[in-house]
C-alpha cells in the first residue's frame, strides 16, 4: 500500500509532463496544470480528515487541563512535565518514561533485527530460488496463511504451547531435558519477541520480495560472469538493490512495535511496560490531555527514527 502511494505520488508529475505537449489551447493548458491537484485531492482529503485533523486535535489537547470528568481548554505544559516527571531528578536512575521507552526500544531493535534476517532470507528464497511464477505465488500465499486469523488469536495460541504446563515444557520434562518446567518461556521478554517476530515478519517479507523482483536478473548474471562469489553478489548487488524494500519493511516493523501494547500485554503477562499501555490506561481514566502528550512524544520519537532511516536510504529515489 505504501508502495502504491509512493508510486502514485511519483506518477503525477510524470503524467503532466506527458500531457503538456498534447494540450493546445490556453484553457486546456490551465486545466492541465490543475489536473494533478485534482488527482491528488481525494487522497489529500482523506489524509486531512483522518490523519492531519486528529493529529492536530491530539496536539492541541496535549496542552489542555483536565479533571476526573472533564477536559478544559488551556495552554499548559504540565502534561509534558508530568510525562517526564522525575526524569532529570532521578538521573542516573531512570524515570518511568525513560525506562518504558528503553524497554520498547530494546524490543524494537531485537524484533527489527530478527524480522529483517528472517524476512530477507524468505524473500531471497522466493525471489531467486523459486523458478516459476506459479510456485512463487503459491509459496507467497503460504506465508500469508497465519494472517487469515486475528492478531490476538495468533498471539494467544502461543500460551498453551509455552506455558508452565504447556506442550514444550511437557516435552522438556518428559524427555528429561529439563528437571522442572521452564518459566522463562512465557510472560517474559522472550515470549514477547517471539510473538512480535511471528506476527510481523511478513511485513518485512512483502516489501523486500517486491524490491528483489525488480532487480534485473542480468545484473546478477553479470556479477557471476565477472567472477563474484555468491556472497559478494549478495552483498554488492542484491542487498543494495533491495534497500527500498528493507527500508519500507523496517518502517512497518518499527512503527508497529513502538506503538504496540496488546502483544506486550498478552505475551508479557502485562508485567512489561509499554508506552501504548500507559496511554491506554490514561485514556481509560479520562486523562485525555496527558495521554495526548504521551502520544505526541511517542510520535516525535517514531518520526525521528523514520527520518534517520530515510537519511540512510532515499526511498523515493530508489523506487
Amino acid at each position, binding site marked *: 500500500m505504501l508502495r502504491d502511494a509512493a508510486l502514485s505520488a511519483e506518477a503525477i508529475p510524470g503524467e503532466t509532463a506527458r500531457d503538456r505537449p498534447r494540450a493546445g489551447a490556453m484553457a486546456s493548458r490551465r486545466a492541465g496544470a490543475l489536473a494533478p491537484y485534482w488527482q491528488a485531492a481525494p487522497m489529500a482529503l482523506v489524509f486531512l480528515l483522518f490523519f492531519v485533523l486528529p493529529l492536530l486535535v491530539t496536539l492541541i489537547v496535549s496542552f489542555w487541563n483536565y479533571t476526573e470528568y472533564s477536559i478544559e481548554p488551556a495552554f499548559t505544559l504540565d502534561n509534558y512535565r508530568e510525562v517526564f516527571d522525575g526524569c532529570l531528578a532521578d538521573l542516573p536512575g531512570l524515570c518511568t518514561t525513560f525506562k518504558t521507552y528503553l524497554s520498547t526500544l530494546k524490543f524494537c531493535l531485537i524484533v527489527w533485527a530478527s524480522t529483517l534476517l528472517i524476512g530477507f532470507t524468505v524473500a531471497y528464497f522466493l525471489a531467486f530460488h523459486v523458478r516459476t511464477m506459479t510456485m512463487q505465488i503459491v509459496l507467497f500465499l503460504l506465508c500469508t496463511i497465519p494472517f487469515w486469523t486475528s492478531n490476538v488469536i495468533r498471539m494467544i495460541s502461543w500460551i498453551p504451547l509455552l506455558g508452565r504446563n504447556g506442550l514444550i515444557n511437557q516435552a522438556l520434562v518428559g524427555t528429561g531435558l529439563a528437571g522442572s518446567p521452564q518459566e522463562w518461556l512465557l510472560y517474559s521478554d522472550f515470549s514477547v519477541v517471539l510473538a512480535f517476530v511471528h506476527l510481523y515478519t511478513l511485513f518485512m517479507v512483502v516489501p523486500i520480495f517486491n524490491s528483489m523482483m525488480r532487480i534485473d536478473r542480468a545484473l546478477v548474471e553479470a556479477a557471476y560472469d565477472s567472477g563474484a562469489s555468491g556472497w559478494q553478489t549478495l552483498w554488492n548487488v542484491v542487498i543494495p538493490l533491495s534497500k527500498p524494500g528493507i527500508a519500507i519493511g523496517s518502517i512497518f516493523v518499527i512503527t508497529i512495535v513502538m506503538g504496540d501494547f496488546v502483544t506486550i*500485554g498478552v505475551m508479557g*503477562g502485562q508485567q512489561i511496560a509499554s508506552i501504548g*499501555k500507559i496511554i491506554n490506561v490514561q485514556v481509560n481514566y479520562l486523562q485525555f490531555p496527558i495521554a495526548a502528550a504521551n502520544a505526541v512524544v511517542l510520535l516525535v520519537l517514531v518520526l525521528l527514527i523514520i527520518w534517520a532511516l530515510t537519511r540512510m536510504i532515499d526511498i523515493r529515489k530508489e523506487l
Partner: protein
Amino acid sequence: MTKNISTGGMSRRTVLKGSAALAGLAGTGFASSFPAPAVHAQEAVTLRYLGTAVNQSADIARKAKEDIGVTIEYIPVETDEVAKRVITQPNSFDLLDSEYFSLPKLLPSGNLQGMDAGKIKYAGQIATVFTKGEVEGKKIGDQGTAPKKVFYLEGQFSKKFSAEPTEWITLIPTTYNADTLGIRPDLIKRPIESWAELVNPEFKGKAAILNIPSIGIMDAAMVVEALGKYKYPDKGNMTKEEIDLTTDFLKEAKKAGQFRAFWSDFNESVNLMASGEVVIQSMWSPAVTAVRSKGIPCTYQPLKEGYRGWASGFGLPKTLEGRKLDAAYEFINWFLSGWAGAYLNRQGYYSAVLSTAKENMEPYEWAYWMEGKPAEKDIHAPDGTLLEKAGTVRDGGSYEDRMGAIACWNSVMDENTYMIRKWNEFIAA
C-alpha cells in the same frame, strides 16, 4: 428478536446470544401464543442499555420483552469505557448500568438524573447494604466508595450526594458481590486464610493481581494490612504517601518475581487459573465459576481480613424523557420484581430486592446460594449447566457471612491521577 437484543460486541457473544434467544423462543412457544395487547397497542419502546458484558444477559432481555414488551438493546463495553461513554457521549444510551464507584466522577458531569424513588415500586425493599450500609442490622466496612455514600442525591438534577435518604436515587442496584482471592486448592494443598498469602514466597512466580489500577491497588492494600505493615485510615482514598507505600510494596514483590502475570479482563484470569500458571490471584466470582465448570478445582477463598465489595446499578441519562423514561422505570420495576433477581442470584451475584428474588427461586436454591447451606440437590446455572453437586456448600457461606464481612469497596480516590502514575511506574518497574 435476535437482532433487537444483540447489537455490537464480539461475534462469539452475538452468536451465543442468538442461540440463547432461539432456545428461548422454542421454550416459550406457549407464552407467545397469548396475545400481548400492550405490545400491539403502541409501537414498542427500545431501550439502549449501556453496561459491561458480564451484566448483559440475553435471557433477561428476552424475558423483559415477553413480560412488559420493552426491547432491550445491549451496548456491551468494558468497565472503564462505561464511564468514558457517560461523560463523552451521554446521548448514546437510554439506560446505564454502572458501578457505584464511578459515580463521584460521573455525577459532576451533569449527564445523569436522579431516579424518583416514588416511581420505583420496590424502593423501600432495596437491600440495606445500599441504603444503610448494613447487613442484617450490622454495620459493614465502608472504606472506599461504599454505595451508601453515593446512593441518594440532593435533588433530581443535583450534582451533590446526600448523606440522608432523599427521594432521588443515583443508581438502582442490579448486581453486587464480595470479591476475594481465588485459589487452586489442588495445587496449594493447604488452607489459605489471609490476604498476606498473595505475596508468600511459597507462591513465587505463581501469583497474579489485576491490572485495573483502582481495584488492583486496593487488593494490594488488603495485603499490606494483612502483613501488618500499615493500617490505612481509608484504603479507598489513600494519601500520596500511602499510595507511594503501596506501590513500593508492589514493586518490591514484582522485582522478587512474585507475580506470574497481571490481568485486566475476566477471561485472562480464567485462563491463568485454569492453565495452572497461577495458583493464587485476585479474582471475580463468575471467573471462579468458569474455572470450576471446566472441571478444575478453584475456590473463592474467604479470608479473615474480609472482602472487597463492588456494586453496580441502573442510572438514567439526564436527557431521557417521555415514553422512553416511562419504559425505563417500567423495566427497572420489572427487574426488581423477582425473575431477574433470581436469575442473577443463580449466577452467584446478589440481587437488589432479596424478597422478590426468593419467591422466584426453589427453596433448595435459596438455601444454597443465600443461606450457605449444603445443596440438597445438584445446583445448576440459569443456562442449565451443572455448577455444583448436591452436598457442596458455597464458598464463603451465606449472604450475611459474605456481604457482612466486606472491609472496603471499589473506589475512585481523590489522588486518582497520582495513583495511576504510580501504578504505571509499578508496571514499568
